């Protein structure tokens, strides 16, 4: 458009009255993106990121492996791949939801066993399903604040060994007496069922989304698109048929299955209510896995000769009503857009965790996101959602896919139990 035409469009927009659409700030949007793509010495960059394969809870390859042992595997591979001197890593944050005591003791021990010297500090943290992302964001913030120079954000979960009723303690009378507070312990399946009903998300739509997740994942797996992000891990595994313990190498997500269609999912019985719409096939799988991300300033990475895979730009966290926890990404993503100065058109890939097909579809539709940009390699429905690990896993999934496609800007986001959402902006290089 010529300058005069642009002005005319802008001014004629003023005449539309209350029914007007807000004119996009032409030039600014691309300027926001251009600003994101700039490389500055104080950028927080990712120089290595990886994950273990995700395996089915109770029967997959990691069913007998402790969370801390998977973490050791992920840390060892991270050191090996990045060739970082482990003595330079000052802090390690590990997100994990289920372990008693937050896993603080085991994770410190795991870091030592993986080859980090005693000088590398370790903390565990728990923001439910966003723990892995929170761990990366905490490390990034600590680096930009100058508290540390190099750190690792990680996430791990053994749902095989630690998933169960013990994960939440009894609520006191005081908590039970407050309505919004008592809602915090409503099980995820039950509240998602209610939300799907309230928001009118039909089962058909959920099944179609879930089936496409499976189909995308199997295509990606067959094309080897997960190979870069997955670090194979050798573990002991008890063969349920023979009862013997074998040593196996786990290098593939075993939840990914061929031949799943919306029709085949349509036959599964709902899990949480007779007339419900949510079932095992359109909710995330129970899985085991670990992931880790190595973060530092660009100036540090250049000094050490580290390969820069991408950078961390901004993150947001938002609270929503506990019963509507599934809408978390809908609250968090616009918030992170504002922080990063971009809009949805500037983003090439959205990695939005598929806790339930219902909530993921609702958020995407409500935000008006292009379905082709969401989870291009499938998501938690197809390969699993080891709670605390997912946020750190998304970083690898996103950055490798952006790099493969030659695209730049990505978002990772997830809903968080008890009513929250988190989102972060990443740029691949």
């Amino acid at each position, binding site marked *: 458009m*010529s*300058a*005069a035409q642009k*002005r*005319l469009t*802008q*001014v004629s*927009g*003023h*005449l*539309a*009255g*209350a*029914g*007007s659409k*807000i*004119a996009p*700030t*032409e*030039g*600014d949007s691309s*300027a*926001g993106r251009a600003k994101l793509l700039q490389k500055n010495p104080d950028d927080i960059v990712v120089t290595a990121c990886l994950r273990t394969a995700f395996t089915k809870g109770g029967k997959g390859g990691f069913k007998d492996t402790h969370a801390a042992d998977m973490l050791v595997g992920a840390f060892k591979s991270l050191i090996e791949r990045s060739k970082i001197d482990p003595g330079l890593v000052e802090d390690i944050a590990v997100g994990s939801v289920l372990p008693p005591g937050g896993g603080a003791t085991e994770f410190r021990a795991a870091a030592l066993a993986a080859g980090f010297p005693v000088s590398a500090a370790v903390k565990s943290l728990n923001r439910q399903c966003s723990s892995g992302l929170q761990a990366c964001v905490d490390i990034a913030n600590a680096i930009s604040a100058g508290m540390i120079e190099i750190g690792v954000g990680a996430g791990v979960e053994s749902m095989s060994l630690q998933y169960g009723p013990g994960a939440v303690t009894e609520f006191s009378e005081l908590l039970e007496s407050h*309505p*919004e507070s008592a809602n915090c312990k409503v099980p995820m399946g039950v509240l998602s069922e209610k939300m799907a009903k309230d928001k009118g998300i039909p089962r058909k739509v959920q099944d179609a989304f879930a089936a496409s997740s499976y189909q995308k994942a199997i295509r990606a797996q067959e094309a080897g698109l997960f190979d870069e992000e997955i670090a194979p891990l050798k573990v002991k595994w008890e063969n349920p048929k023979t009862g013997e313990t074998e040593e196996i190498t786990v290098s593939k997500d075993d939840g990914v299955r061929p031949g799943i269609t919306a029709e085949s999912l349509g036959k599964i019985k709902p899990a949480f209510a007779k007339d419900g719409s949510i079932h095992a096939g359109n909710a995330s799988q129970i899985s085991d896995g670990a992931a880790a991300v190595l973060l530092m300033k660009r100036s540090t990475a250049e000094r050490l000769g580290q390969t820069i895979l991408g950078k961390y730009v901004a993150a947001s966290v938002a609270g*929503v*009503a506990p*019963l*509507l926890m599934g*809408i978390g990404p809908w*609250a968090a993503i616009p918030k992170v857009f*504002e*922080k990063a*100065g971009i809009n949805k058109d500037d983003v090439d890939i959205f990695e939005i965790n598929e806790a339930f097909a219902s909530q993921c579809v609702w958020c995407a539709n409500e935000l008006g996101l292009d379905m082709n940009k969401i989870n291009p390699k499938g998501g938690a429905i197809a390969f699993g959602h080891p709670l605390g690990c997912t946020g750190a896993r998304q970083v690898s999934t996103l950055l490798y896919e952006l790099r493969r496609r030659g695209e730049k800007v990505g978002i990772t986001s997830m809903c968080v139990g008890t*009513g929250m959402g988190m989102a972060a902006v990443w740029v691949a290089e």
Partner: protein
Amino acid sequence: MEFRTAGYNGYAVKYSPYFDSRLAVVASANFGLVGNGRVYILGLDANGIHAERVYDTPDSVYDLAWAERNETQVIVGGGDGSIKLFDTKSPDNFPVQEWKEHNREVYSVNYNLVTKDSFVSSSWDGTVKVWDPVRPNSLLTLPTHSCTYSTAFAPRSPSIISAVSSDSHLRIFDLRTNPSSANHLVHLIPIHGYPPMPGSTYGPPRQTYAPSECLTHDWNKYRDTVIATAGVDQLIRTFDIRNPKAGPVAILRGHDYAVRKLSWSPHLSDVLLSGSYDMTARVWSDGSNANAPSRPANLGPEAWGDELGRMNVHTEFVTGVDWCLFGAEGWVATTAWDERVCVWDVRSVMNPANASRFN
């Protein structure tokens, strides 16, 4: 009284803060879409309005501000993203200073009324910039990420800047805050109202409106926390930034098309003047003066405020309005796309009861 900006469609008018007989007007050829701009320094006397100085600019010009420190200088923002400083003491017709940092149309400029040593500009490029007229580069850039039609310094504070933009938000920046990722932003007020919190059962339901582009705003000259905003949705709202989450204090409904320019009276704390694409300029009371008729409190912000009078002389979009600081309290100037600058008394369009409030 009337002046014709022949061939140029008016965009803004401002009374000199020094002389009651001097006005500055910016106008642009072809409705500001393409072509030259022109800056008029006008003098008023018993014989009418005459042009004292005329400056031509290569691109359209959209807003101006009189320098608060020098009675001969005006600052002008234009379509090519430039800001120009003209000085009537200069013998030639060229700007004495020019700043080129904005990438798009500069739609507003406003002088710091307290320290008088800086001014602020806003642009369609999604930024607000703070300038010192003696320095060649801007002092500070405040991003809004949205086409910003209007920005202003708070009249009583040297460090508070407000801006309204096409994203339907009123932003308040406080330069005393530490520089950080927030870029001095202290309030981000959705003019259309806060969305209801999903799932929340707290608080009474509040009426919300669809977001719409905000085109103009002005700080009240007496109540230094009150700001009026208006734009494409035709409503004028007042906000009290002491309670930014409370939503508008008053909503003035009446204009039939977008409101292009607002100005609070320098004399009466509840009175404001608006110019609109509906070709009228209207005078309003926001209902805050002690003599206003009492109203039931439960009717919400739309119950406040009254239209006091309407000026129908212009035959095109009214784009600029301003109050005279001196003399009788009702004198205003308006400019419009009909190539006319009108100087008139708001009392002439009011009923005698309202008119009697102006001395």
